[in-house]
């Protein structure tokens, strides 16, 4: 007998519908699974057999063939267990085919028949439209986020069968998708002193400008970066859905309410591999850190210590907002639009005021070389962070709180979106001419900087974008970018050159 049960697997961050075809025929008792299952998927046989027995169903002593269609994509994980079990029940007529019509099944089976959670339920449910999807109770939230109807929720195989034949009602699961508690984030008012770095954070948040923090150990780079997500407004509906899909595909825990409504903050350690950064993997295509940070903040502490391939892997996502990963098991396009914040020491010894560096030239230039080049060029803001002075640390009153700054950020973002339909960091040079005209004196200062070779062509456009954001923050509605906006933008673009390399410039 033949049964055909819809289910799904996940490739990258996208769900792929899979049809589980079960054929129980004559011949020597046996079990064959075809259609590119991976190892956990292949092991489903033992789980399904035990689960059926535990739930008082019979395992047919006939020749069983299972085909996972389409056969060309790799099926990974144990999420097809439930569909296989249901397929066997239908094929052996322990369950009428009519009862399962219009249903799809996702879930891993325990030996006692329990349904266990699997990762990637949100994109899977998203891919299975127009059917009722049965999912494990632990995945109910994710399923609700993506489902067009109401997903069916169950705790074990026996319950699924009971509900399908109508001897029991489907379990109702209370979900409040609008439950929107913002988890407690570190507040900007904890940062004492450091007016420049605080302001730079505000600019980065308002214009979505990538930011590099350069400073000695203990100057508070990490502390500042952690406060950036708190300055960003909540995610819009489609961004929120997109980020939720990625987190579901990666098997991350979703917040109460299911949807990620606030920008995620990812801080991978500097030993993170290139694969873990951009996504991929030999067994399964998993989203990497750049995708997990999509619509949020990717914080890379000790940027210079990251492996070269991991840093190079950032270029494509920074340029295009997506990563295209091709591996032997398949190909995936994953979203990767994030605000990059990186922190680095000015040199291997940590640096400090002029004359305090103890590194030899080789060590320093090696360190700076790793930071410079294509990656350093991508940062609109390169801010030098200094240790706050003692008075600020002990005495000063707390600065503005994140909520106050966020209001200004939201207002500035609204101005930018209203004007060009995008945030300032994404403006093209042509659009800049239109929406960020320079005042006469501002133009002449920038011309001078270019003539003195302190600003490249690319740097020129970056300065104009940042200056546009500064103008939006300080004087919303001001059409022209004036000298003070440009000067402030220039002061937030520190050079990565070591002091020793600079000296011939001004002596001779």
């Amino acid at each position, binding site marked *: 007998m033949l049964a055909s049960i819809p289910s799904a697997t996940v490739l990258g961050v996208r769900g792929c519908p899979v049809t589980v075809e079960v054929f129980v025929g004559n011949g020597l008792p046996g079990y064959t699974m075809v259609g590119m299952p991976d190892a956990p998927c292949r092991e489903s046989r033992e789980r399904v057999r035990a689960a059926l027995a535990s739930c008082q169903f019979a395992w047919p002593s006939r020749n069983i063939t299972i085909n996972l269609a389409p056969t060309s994509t790799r099926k990974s994980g144990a999420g097809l267990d439930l569909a296989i079990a249901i397929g066997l029940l239908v094929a052996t007529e322990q369950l009428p085919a009519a009862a399962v019509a219009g249903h799809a099944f996702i879930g891993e089976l325990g030996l006692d028949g329990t349904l266990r959670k699997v990762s990637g339920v949100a994109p899977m449910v998203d891919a299975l439209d127009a059917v009722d999807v049965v999912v494990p109770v632990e995945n109910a939230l994710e399923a609700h986020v993506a489902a067009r109807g109401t997903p069916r929720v169950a705790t074990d195989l026996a319950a699924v069968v009971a509900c399908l034949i109508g001897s029991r009602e489907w379990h109702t699961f209370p979900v409040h998708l609008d439950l929107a508690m913002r988890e407690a984030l570190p507040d900007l008012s904890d940062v004492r002193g450091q*007016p420049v770095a605080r302001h730079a954070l505000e600019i980065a948040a308002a214009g979505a400008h990538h930011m590099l923090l350069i400073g000695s150990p203990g100057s508070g780079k990490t502390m500042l970066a952690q406060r950036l997500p708190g300055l960003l407004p909540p995610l819009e509906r489609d961004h929120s859905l997109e980020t939720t899909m990625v987190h579901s595909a990666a098997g991350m825990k979703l917040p109460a309410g299911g949807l990620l409504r606030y920008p995620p903050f990812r801080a991978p350690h500097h030993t993170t591999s290139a694969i873990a950064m951009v996504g991929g993997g030999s067994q399964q295509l998993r989203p990497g850190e750049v995708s997990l940070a999509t619509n949020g903040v990717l914080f890379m502490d000790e940027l210079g210590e990251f492996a070269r391939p991991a840093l190079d892997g950032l270029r494509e996502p920074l340029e295009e907002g997506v990563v295209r990963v091709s591996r032997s098991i398949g190909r995936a396009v994953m979203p990767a639009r994030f605000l990059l914040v990186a922190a680095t020491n000015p040199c291997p010894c940590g640096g400090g005021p*002029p*004359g305090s560096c103890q590194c030899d030239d080789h060590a320093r230039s090696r360190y700076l070389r790793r930071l410079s080049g294509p990656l350093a060029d991508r940062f609109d803001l390169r801010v030098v962070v200094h240790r706050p002075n003692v008075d600020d640390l002990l005495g000063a009153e707390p600065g503005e709180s994140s909520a106050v700054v966020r209001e200004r950020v939201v207002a500035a973002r609204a101005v930018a979106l209203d004007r060009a339909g995008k945030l300032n960091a994404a403006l093209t040079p042509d659009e800049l001419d239109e929406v960020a005209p320079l005042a006469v004196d501002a133009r002449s200062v920038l011309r*001078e900087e270019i003539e003195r070779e302190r600003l490249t062509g690319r740097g020129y456009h970056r300065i104009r974008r940042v200056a546009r954001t500064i103008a939006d923050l300080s004087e919303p509605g001001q059409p022209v970018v004036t000298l*003070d906006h440009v000067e402030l933008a220039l002061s937030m673009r520190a050079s990565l050159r070591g002091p*020793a390399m600079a000296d011939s410039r001004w*002596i001779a």
Partner: protein
Amino acid sequence: MIADLRTGSLAALAGLDLATAGRLRVLLNYHEPVEALAVAAGRCRPHPAVKRMLTPDLKSAWSASVERRDATEWAVRCSRIGVGAVTNADADYPDVLRHDPQPPAVLFFRGQWAALEARRVGVVGTRNATGPGCTFAATLGAQLAAEGVAVVSGLAKGIDGAAHRGVLRADPRRAVGVVANGLDSPYPRQHRDLWNAVADTGLLLSEWPPGTEPEKFRFPQRNRIIAALSEVLVVVESRERGGSLTTVREALERGVDVMAVPGSVNNRAAAGTNQLIRDGAVPVTDVGDIMLALGLDHRHAASSGFDPRPLPRGAEAIVLDRCRVDPCTLDTIVSELGLTITDAAMTLARLERSGWVRESGGWFEEVSSCPASR
């Protein structure tokens, strides 16, 4: 320069394995260079004194490495880059070094020996110097050269290079550079122009033949030659422990006066020089102090006092005064002087553009006098 077999032999000898200055000195005392090379190769009978030195190990090391170093080839190579070589036996070999406790056996040179005929002052200091430190070194170099005093230094980054740039500005004949690698490849590479200028107009010396890499252990040995060639050694900036302090030690062993430029107590690059002053070194605050130590009349030409930089006004003056105290950051200006970030950034940008302050790594330092005015 014509290809000269004697120079070639010296270059071949100086590059032999295990060829220390002491061993070469013994060898060259008893044999002419061309003959010495034959001795090293084992093709010629050594003088009894040399024979005593030639242990079996040394003998095999030398005869093996002589195979790889052909005198004619080296002669051509030296003549192509204009390098000559002198030993104790030559008239050009500096007299001060003849009486030195550890004289170099061979000195390779480019330039004119006349540079050493003047009075000589060593100016050394850290490679990671502050802006004001480099400016002061350049000023000292220029003023000493203008007084006809030769400046001996190591052509390193920071203070050394700055001092020689000053010399080249005032009187290029007064530059004497002593380096720790072969004279064929400038090191550090950023100083290629400086290196060539010194070789063209002044004198460039090295104890090692062309092709020698600037390895770490060569620098302290080079420093002893700087100390030996100086009548007075001036340290402009140095950390608590630094290469320039090895030069100081060598100078003290040779009875050379050591002078030091005092720095701010907050300036870590001046920690070593301040320590020297505490230990009894004479402080240098202008070129007159050095002229006094040399026993020369000090006829310091009065500078015109003209500074083309626009005088800072208002907020600029206040910010500049703050930068004079010690290097400060944009944060310092904002929180200590109560300016807005935009005002502070604009003021510093104006000061930097007019040449009053200099920015490096987010720190702003005062530039004490305008380089263009000299």
